[in-house]
């Protein structure tokens, strides 16, 4: 039964750029509805790995399936079943909230009716009803990030990839943001999240930490802390990252 439940299966996934091995034989599984923290210092190979998993970049070697689809041959299928939110705010500033929702619903091929009901539901849930026809540029950053996330899961993907989603956001909004992540996970969406905030790492079901292109550890936050004799995730991260040879 475990087999059916895995939405990301990675085996010795590797990406080389010439002599440089950006991602070195990473192997891991992520289960349905899991919140999977993908940690690592800058330059550790997180972005490259994530690009391969999203079907944006073709691996050099190794195997991986996303929602059951192969990363080499079925990237089109993968793209239909994943959502993505990048560290940069990536909605259109000079479109209104409603237009952004309609646009992303449109390019994911949602029916007009579904877009309409989704838009209403989303505006209701985010409390943005009165802002629906305002340009996104006029919203505060916290709202923008929440809207971004909602748009990323608009088409009800199996997995959503969040690339440092809470950068620059205040603690209260971050907390609210994580509430949304939990909600999504409860509804069965698998959340694959990278972050530099170690308190956020504690919110994840399991964490992996990448160092120099390799996946050094993979476990629950509690297990990691006990095996590293650390009081917090911060300490775990420092112990691992200290050994890194690559940096910015």
């Amino acid at each position, binding site marked *: 039964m475990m087999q059916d439940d895995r939405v990301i299966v990675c085996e010795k996934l590797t990406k080389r750029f010439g002599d440089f091995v950006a991602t070195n034989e990473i192997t891991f599984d992520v289960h349905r509805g899991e919140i999977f923290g993908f940690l690592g210092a800058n330059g550790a190979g997180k972005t490259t790995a994530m690009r391969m998993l999203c079907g944006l970049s073709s691996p050099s070697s190794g195997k991986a399936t996303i929602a059951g689809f192969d990363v080499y041959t079925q990237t089109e299928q993968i793209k239909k079943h994943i959502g993505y939110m990048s560290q940069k*705010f990536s909605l259109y500033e000079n479109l209104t909230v409603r237009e952004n929702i309609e646009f992303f619903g449109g390019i994911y091929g949602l029916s007009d009716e579904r877009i309409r009901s989704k838009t209403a539901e989303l505006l209701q849930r985010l409390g943005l009803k009165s802002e629906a026809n305002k340009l996104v540029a006029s919203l505060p950053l916290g709202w923008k990030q929440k809207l971004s996330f909602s748009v990323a899961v608009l088409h009800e993907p199996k997995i959503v990839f969040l690339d440092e989603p809470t950068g620059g956001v205040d603690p209260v909004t971050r907390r609210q943001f994580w509430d949304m992540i939990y909600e999504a996970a409860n509804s069965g969406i698998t959340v694959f999240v990278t972050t530099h905030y170690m308190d956020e790492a504690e919110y994840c079901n399991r964490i992996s930490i990448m160092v120099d292109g390799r996946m050094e550890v993979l476990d629950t936050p509690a297990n990691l802390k006990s095996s590293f004799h650390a009081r917090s995730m911060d300490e775990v991260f420092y112990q691992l990252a200290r050994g890194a040879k690559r940096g910015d």
Partner: protein
Amino acid sequence: MKQFLAFVRKEFYHVLRDRRTLLILFGMPIAQILIFGFALTNEVKDSEILVVDYAKDNASQELLTKIGSSRYFNIRQAALSHNEILSTFRKGKIKAVVVFPAHFNEDLLHQNKAQVQIITDASDVNTANMVTNYLSSIIVDYQNQINANLEIPYRITPEVRMLYNPQLKGAHGFVPGVMALVLLLVSVMMTAISIVREKETGTMEILLVSPFKPVLVIFAKAFPYLALSLVNVTAILLLSVFVLDLPVKGSVALLFAESTLFIITCLALGIFISIKTSSQQVAMLISLMGMLLPTIMFSGFLFPIENMPLPLQVISNIVPSKWFYIIVKSIMIKGLGLAALWRETLILLGMTLFLLLVSLKSFKIRLQ
């Protein structure tokens, strides 16, 4: 298809909400046409013309009265030698000189044909052209008037001489020139900038992760600019016909077809630039320096290519605007059809296909 439409709609929102973009899009062609138009089109009204009448007979007097009575010309008479005519022109006040040969009336009566010489200062091409046209039509008018009750018609042939610029380079050339410039600016620069902007803001990444095909992203981004460019072509043509009185002699449909081809050439260029650059400023600079300058220099719009050194003449051949300029000029001013322009059209088509292939190819490479 529905996805494509959603995308195109979004692009239109972008364009229509950005005041500066709109200003460039629609303000520029209008301003350029009007500036170029009125800077180059001089009113012919009350032009000073000098008459050298060696005949001084009935016919010449009658024709002179006719010319003088029109509101276009102020006549001064003088008996000048050829050299004196040239030196008067150099002073720049005279727009044209009309010379009646001796025996004008006699030639007309006995040989049924006579000649009038019209010499104009063609350094100002438009004025020269217009003065000549007005004078010729007055002469034809006179000819018809005296022929009204004759069996064997008299013929007065105006012998036109354009001083300083006999080939009339640049005549009316500014409308096709402005058209090439505007389309280039809108299609190359705007497309490049709008694609690069998505890269800069990170939305490109989101689009690439979506199931929307990358190639379609490019086409959907280029499409609104194709539409807007065609609106621009229409605006320029309307302005040139109704404001500048420059009619389209050839087929309007052909003109639009050729414009569409050129717009696609430009879009392909814009896409190529956008793939190779990653900031809006760089994209804009390359579009301006790399596309606008060559168009101004090498299209033949402002500087006659024939007068350039050979290496530059050779270089001018790779500038797409040169071919578009030739095509538009031929259709608008000479009234030529596709039969006469297939070579230029083919060259432009070749360039378009080449650019499209190169940009799509480099786009794919970048995706990896």
